[in-house]
C-alpha cells in the first residue's frame, strides 16, 4: 500500500469511516510493535507503547498535515512514545526498587524457545546502546531509513546521526 493510499484512508477516516482506521492499524501494527520492542527491550512495555501509538493515531489523525509520509509520522510517534516510556521507567526505577524485580516474559508473543533466545541476545546488545544511539540504529539498521528520513523523525542533524550510528555499530560489535 503506497503513501497515496494511506492518505486516502486518512481522508476517509476523517470523513467518518472508522473502518479506514482499522485498515491503517492492521497494516502498521506489527511494524509499530517491533520498532517499540527494539527500543524498550521487552514485550510488556512494547505492548503498552504499541497501544499508546495506535490510540494516538486514532486521536491525532486530524492533525496529520501530510507534509511527510504517513509512515514517517508513525515512526516519529513510535520513537517518541518509546523514549517517553524509557524515561518514565528510569524515574520510577530511581525512586523505587522496581529494577530488582525480574520482569516475567511468560506472556511474550514469541513462543519458540530458540527464537526467544536469539531475540534475547539481540535485545541485550541493543540495551547496551544509549537511547539516542539505539533510536538511530533501529531506524537505520532495522527500518532501513535514510539519514534524511531519520533526521526528519528525530529532529537531529545528519552529521550527528552518522556519528550516533558509528558509535552504535562499535558498541554492537563489541569494539567500545
Amino acid at each position, binding site marked *: 500500500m503506497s503513501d497515496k493510499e494511506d492518505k486516502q484512508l486518512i481522508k476517509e477516516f476523517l470523513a467518518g469511516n472508522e473502518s479506514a482506521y*482499522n485498515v491503517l*492499524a*492492521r497494516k502498521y*501494527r*506489527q511494524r509499530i*510493535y*517491533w520498532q517499540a520492542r527494539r527500543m524498550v527491550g521487552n514485550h510488556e512495555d512494547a*505492548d503498552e507503547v*504499541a*497501544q499508546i501509538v*495506535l*490510540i494516538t493515531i*486514532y*486521536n491525532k489523525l486530524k492533525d496529520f498535515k501530510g507534509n511527510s509520509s504517513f509512515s514517517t509520522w508513525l515512526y516519529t510517534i513510535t520513537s517518541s512514545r518509546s523514549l517517553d516510556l524509557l524515561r518514565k521507567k528510569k524515574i520510577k526505577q530511581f525512586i523505587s526498587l522496581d529494577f530488582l524485580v525480574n520482569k516475567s516474559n511468560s506472556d511474550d*508473543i*514469541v*513462543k*519458540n524457545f530458540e*527464537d*526467544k533466545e*536469539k*531475540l534475547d541476545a*539481540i535485545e541485550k*546488545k541493543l540495551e547496551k546502546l544509549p537511547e539516542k544511539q539505539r533510536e538511530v540504529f533501529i531506524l537505520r*539498521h*532495522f527500518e532501513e531509513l535514510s*539519514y534524511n528520513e531519520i533526521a526528519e523523525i528525530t529532529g537531529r542533524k545528519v552529521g550527528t546521526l*552518522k*556519528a550516533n*550510528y*558509528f558509535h552504535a*555499530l*562499535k558498541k*554492537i*560489535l563489541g*569494539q567500545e
Partner: protein
Amino acid sequence: MEKRELILKYLSGLLGKEEKIKFERELESDADLKNEFQKISEELNGLKFTPATDSEYFSNLEQKVKARVEKRGLRHKTNFAFGFGLVFSILIIFSVFEIFDGSKGTQPNQNKIVNSFSINSDEIVGNYSLNDLESLGITTDDYFSAGLSDVSVDDIINFLQTNDLNASDYLSSLNLSENSLNEIMENLKNKEY
C-alpha cells in the same frame, strides 16, 4: 586507520567522497578487508531477526486499543459530568447561603444575632458603639428593638445615611416606645437631619 574502524566509518557514511571511492577500490583488491567486511555485514544482518509471533496477539491488540479509546471517551464524559455537577453544587450552596444569610436582610432576627455573639443587652449598651455592633452583624434594628435606646444621635444619623433610609419610616417600623421615638426624632431634628 584500522580496517574495522574504516569499515564502520564506511557503513556509517562518515567517509568523504574520495575516501569512499578509495575504500570501495580496496574492498575489491584487498582480500583481508573484504573478509572483515563480510564478517561484520553478516554479524549485523544477523541482528535483523524478527521471530514468528503469537498470531492472536496482533488481532487482540486492536480490541485492546478500541476498548481503551472507548474508555477514554467515557472518562472524558464522566469528567465533564463531574465538573458540571461540582460547579452546579457550589452554585446551589452559595445561593442557599445568600438567601438565608440574616446579616444581609433588612429585618434580621434579633435573638439569633444577639445569641450568636453571646452578648447581653447591658453589655451592648456599656461596651459597644453602633458602628462596633454593625461590624459584629448586629443592626440598629436589633439594637433598638432590644430596647437599647442609649445610642448617640450621630450614630443613628450615620446609620440612616449609610443605608439610605428615611428616618421617620425606619424608626416607626421599630417597636420602640413612643417616648423613645419622640426623643430620637427630636434629636435628629436638632441635628438638622
